Structure formats: C-alpha cells, structure tokens
C-alpha cells in the first residue's frame, strides 16, 4: 500500500474554519497538508513545490476555484484537482470536471466519500508512476518505424519487412481492416534505400475504373472530355520511390490487365498518348480480401496475383496477438497526451482487463479509436472502464440483470430505471462516481435516485448529508 507521507495536498479556502478542519482531518491520514487562503497564495505554493492534490473551494473572492484550477494546471499538469462546493453551485462544479477536475465534493461532505476519493487519487497516481517506468522499458524494443508490437508473430513480420525493404521486389501485404497494412507499407518505404524518394498511395477501391486508370497512368491533354491539361499519373509520381496500391483486391478486370503489363514491363504510356514512360518504382500492394479465393472464383487474374504475391506479408489480426494491447495502448496514449495537451497516463486495471478481452473486429484502428474516446471522456489522467464505451461484459453478480438487456414489457419506467441503476452499480462494484458517468447523470442525481429506490450496498450507510434523528 502506498504511503501517504509522499502525498502533498494543498487545501485552499477563504474560510479558515473549513481549511483547518479539512487539513486536520487529512493530517491524521499522514498526508503532508498545506493551506492557502486564496488563489494567489495557492499559486505561489504550487510554483514553489510539487503537490499531488489540490482541494479548492469553488467560490472565493478574487480568483475562484475554476480560475485557480486553470492556472494550477499550467504549473503542475499532473495535479489532481478536487473542487469543493455548496449545493447551489453544483453546476459549476460539473463545469470544473469538464475542465479536468478529478471530482467535486458538496459541503459538508461524507467522511467516507472524502476518504475514498483521496485513496483513489493516490492509487491512480501510483499507477501512473508505474506506467511511466513500464513505458520507458517498452519503448526501445519492438518498433518498426511507427509500428509497435512485441508479439512473436509480428516480430517475424518486422523481420521479413526489413529484409524485403532492402530489395525492390513487389510486396503484398495481407490483413484485416485496421490491422496496420498502410503503416507497414510506409515503414517498408522508410526502411528501404528509396526512403528519400516519394511514397505515393493509391486507393484502388475509391475510384471508378476509368478514373483509376487515369489516376495511375496519367493522361495527355485532350485525351478525353475534361482532360484540359497533361496529367502525370501516380506511377510517374512514384518514380524512384514506392507506389502503394491499397485495396488492390478491388481492382476491376480491365485495370487488372493494365496493371499486369506495367508490373511486367515497368513501362506504360499515358492515356491518349504514344510516348512510352519508363519508371523505377517499387510496388507495395495491400488488400483485406482473400485474393486466392478471388483467383479461384475468377474475380482476380491469376497472373496478376503471382506478380503481386512475390513477397507476401501477412499481418495477424489483433485478437491473435493480445499481448500487444498494453504496448499499443502506451503507444497511442503518448500520442493522445500530446494531441490533447494534457496528460493521459494509463488505464485502470478494470479497463485494461476489458481492453485485453475485447475481440477487436476493427483491429488496431478500433483500439486507437476506443482509447481516443476514453482519453477525451476521462476526468483525470487515468482512463476508467466506463470512459472506453466498450460494450459491457456479462453480469458480475448473479442477481444483477445484465445492462442493456431488454426488459419485460409489463414494467413501469420507474422499475426499468431502478433495475438499470442496480445493474450499472453492480457492474461498477458500487462505484457511484463511475456509475453516474455510465448513466450520464451527475453524482448528486444518482445519490438521490439511489435514496429514492432504497439502493444501498449490503452494510452500507445510506449516503446522508443530514444528521440522524
């Protein structure tokens, strides 16, 4: 268990009694607590020393909690900010969370809630530190240009790609959508002696056959209506570089023949022209189709297939190399941090389990999209399970209905709401903050609904803000 002695907390409130009583409480947990009476002196302390947590009142004269949060982040980007508020200003507290606050507390707050929140922040920050170490260790190995992987099957792919890059043989990359065919093609170019030359990409699926033809080979002025000027094709553009024929399995019969000719002769003429153009181009083709099947059914020319299939490289789908998921996650989170301009340091263990278990039909692209969503939605620097928006797995307890499962048509709306709340609470292990996020309501609303439906965990106190009796 992490020791609290390294955890420095800054408590900011204009009311001395609030500062004192909160600082006294945190003191006894062994945290290093400092106090500031206003935003200005808070910033002075933040400028002098690193803090783990800033707990600030929302309404203060001069600089309010929101402004303080914004300035504090500039000084210490990894600071966890908790905003204290009165009921009347909960909306603003929600704004604070949208601007990156970890959470908010409504004064006076439940001691259990405060305790749990502090523990959660400390645990997350611990996780972040561990991740940083892990990340450094992983970064050096297992890369081919922009591709990250440590799966043995992928290491073999990298090996083959490096060797193949040195030759100018045609390479055919096979793999499901999102598996990384295009990044691999670019990596091969970058690793090849042609790296200084152009990398030109043509998506064969995107264009009609005649447009694609002119796109590839170019045309002379006036060769067809609309051909106002001479146009250089992609083959010419890729001279001394690499031409990437993406989705090559989608090419129609006429163009298949044209392609076959160029691949055989390395020369062609522009549409409507007689001049023979000779090019020095390395071809990398890719497809997510089963080309052998297409050959068998007659949809794809066998001779073209053999011309393309000189060095086939097969990219395994992500579900067959789940050990890559943590590594790819690190890879993407690092980029996302830079893009979003705020730290995205990792995911919770539950989120990680879900990521590793997901089937990933959209492969690495889907993983990147899921993490991107998670990073945008996440409140702190750590992405939680609910942030990912993955479909939830089965119930964790026998008595909880599975979220999202249709309910019987004889139930009232209240009953459906009650059951759904139970299901989500069960799924999150009764984590109210996380459940509120899944449900799309704020925590106060969820608490009041829980009270209304009499929902509490076994042995739990009912959340209360009023003294008993």
């Amino acid at each position, binding site marked *: *268990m992490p*020791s*609290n002695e390294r955890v420095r907390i800054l408590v900011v409130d204009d*009311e001395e*009694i*609030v500062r004192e*009583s*909160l600082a*006294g*409480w945190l*003191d*006894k*947990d*062994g945290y290093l607590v400092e106090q500031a009476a206003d935003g200005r002196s808070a910033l002075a302390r933040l400028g002098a020393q690193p803090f783990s947590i800033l707990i600030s009142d929302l309404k203060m004269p001069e600089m309010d909690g929101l402004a303080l949060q914004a300035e504090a982040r500039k000084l210490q980007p990894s600071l966890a900010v908790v905003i*204290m508020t009165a009921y009347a200003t909960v909306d603003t507290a929600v704004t604070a969370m949208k601007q990156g606050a970890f959470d908010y507390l409504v*004064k*006076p*707050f*439940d*001691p*259990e809630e*405060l*305790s*749990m929140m502090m523990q959660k922040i400390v645990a997350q920050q611990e996780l972040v530190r561990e991740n940083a170490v892990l990340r450094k260790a992983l970064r050096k190995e297992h890369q081919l240009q922009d591709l990250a992987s440590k799966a043995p099957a992928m290491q073999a792919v990298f090996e083959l790609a490096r060797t193949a890059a040195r030759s100018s043989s045609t390479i055919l990359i096979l793999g499901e959508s999102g598996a990384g065919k295009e990044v691999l093609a670019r990596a091969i170019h970058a690793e090849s002696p042609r790296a200084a030359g152009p990398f030109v990409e043509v998506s064969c699926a995107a264009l009609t056959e005649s447009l694609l033809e002119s796109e590839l080979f170019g045309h002379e002025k006036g060769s067809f209506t609309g051909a106002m000027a001479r146009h250089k094709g992609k083959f010419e553009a890729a001279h001394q570089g690499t031409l990437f024929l993406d989705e090559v399995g989608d090419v129609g019969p006429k163009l298949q023949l044209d392609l076959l000719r160029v691949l055989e002769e390395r020369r062609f003429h522009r549409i409507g022209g007689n001049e023979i153009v000779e090019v020095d181009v390395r071809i990398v083709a890719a497809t997510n189709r089963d080309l052998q099947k297409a050959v068998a059914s007659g949809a794809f020319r066998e001779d073209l297939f053999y011309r393309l299939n000189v060095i086939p490289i097969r990219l395994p789908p992500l579900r067959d190399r789940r050990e890559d998921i943590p590594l790819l996650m690190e890879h993407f989170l690092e980029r996302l941090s830079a893009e979003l301009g705020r730290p995205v340091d990792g995911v919770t263990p539950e989120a990680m389990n879900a990521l590793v278990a997901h089937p990933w039909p959209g492969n690495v692209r889907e993983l990147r999209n899921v993490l991107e969503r998670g990073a945008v939605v996440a409140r702190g620097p750590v992405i939680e399970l609910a942030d990912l928006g993955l479909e939830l797995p089965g119930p964790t307890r026998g008595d909880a209905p599975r979220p999202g499962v249709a309910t019987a048509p004889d139930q009232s709306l209240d009953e459906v709401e009650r059951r759904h709340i139970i299901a989500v609470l069960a799924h999150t292990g009764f984590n109210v903050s996380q459940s509120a996020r899944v449900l799309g309501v704020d925590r106060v609303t969820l608490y009041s609904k829980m009270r209304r439906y009499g929902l509490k965990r076994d*042995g*739990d*106190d009912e959340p*209360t*803000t*009023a*003294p*008993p*009796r």
Partner: protein
Amino acid sequence: MEPITIWWIGERAMAPAVMERVQQELAQAYGVAVRCAEPPGRPSGTWDPKRRQHLTSRMLSWLLQVGPPGGKLLGLTDQDLFIPILTYVFGEAQLGGRVAVASAARLREDLGPGGEGLFMERLVKESVHELGHAYGLLHCQVPRCVMTRAAGVRDVDEKSRHLCPRCRHRLTEPGRSRHAVE
C-alpha cells in the same frame, strides 16, 4: 506514559458495564492506569442549531478548560459530532495533546445480530483510536490496526481493537509524535 481519565458527558445515562469495558480495554491497550470519573457538568457552547450536532473542536476546548491538569482525558458522549467540512465524525482528539472525544451516536447503526455486544466493541475501538491520536499516533495503513481510519461503521467493524506492532512501537518512540496546534 500518562494515565487516562474517562468522563461520560452524554445526555442520557450510559450503562456502567459499557464504561467499565472501555476502561479495561484502554488499560490493556496503553498499559496505563485508567479511571472513570464524574465530569463537573455537561459541555456548553458546543451545540450548532443549524447542523443540529455538536462541534467537536468546541467539545475539545471545553474538556481542556474544565479537565484535570495532568494525564489524558477522554470524553464519551451520545451526542452526534461534526467538524465544519464533514457531515459527521465519530470522534476527535488533539493530536499528541491532552484531550479526546468519541461519540456513540452513530455506533448503533446496522448492529444486526451483533446487538449491544457489537455496539460496545465499536465504542471500545473508537475510544482506543482517539486516545491513540492523543498519544500522538497518526492513522495507520496496516489492515485491522485500530488506528486505521474509520469513516463509517463498516470500517469500524472491519478493524480490530488492537494497535499493530508498528503503532505500539511508535507510542514509545520519543519525539515521534506530531503535536497539533491548539
């Protein structure tokens, strides 16, 4: 280590058996003389009409004012306690100081089949805990140590009434306690 005095400062009467039990367990835990005594009255100026609870810091000041000059003083009450920022507290102590207070008001929640026995056990744990603070102990993270933070009755039930070896060691370590400002 200094002896301990216990005062019942609640509104209603408390069963003598409960007080005796607390007395015994405190003597056990800290190895000092413990006596139950009659307070000179009930705390005044501690009630907050808005919150309808008693302000703990005023309880502590009152104990300091009217308490005996030497030793540690534990006030036990049936009144609900609060500090301004929290909805309630089970008790509070002057860190490394002379006085402590613990409340029984919330310790009967969810007693279940445990009944009065469980209630007594809870009060013992909270008493040992608050005195631990008075002897300078901070919260401990060793599972089941009586000095772990209990924010609700479930936490109280989870821990034991005993100090872990480390806390026991710290008790005797000179200069280790942090003194809170009064």
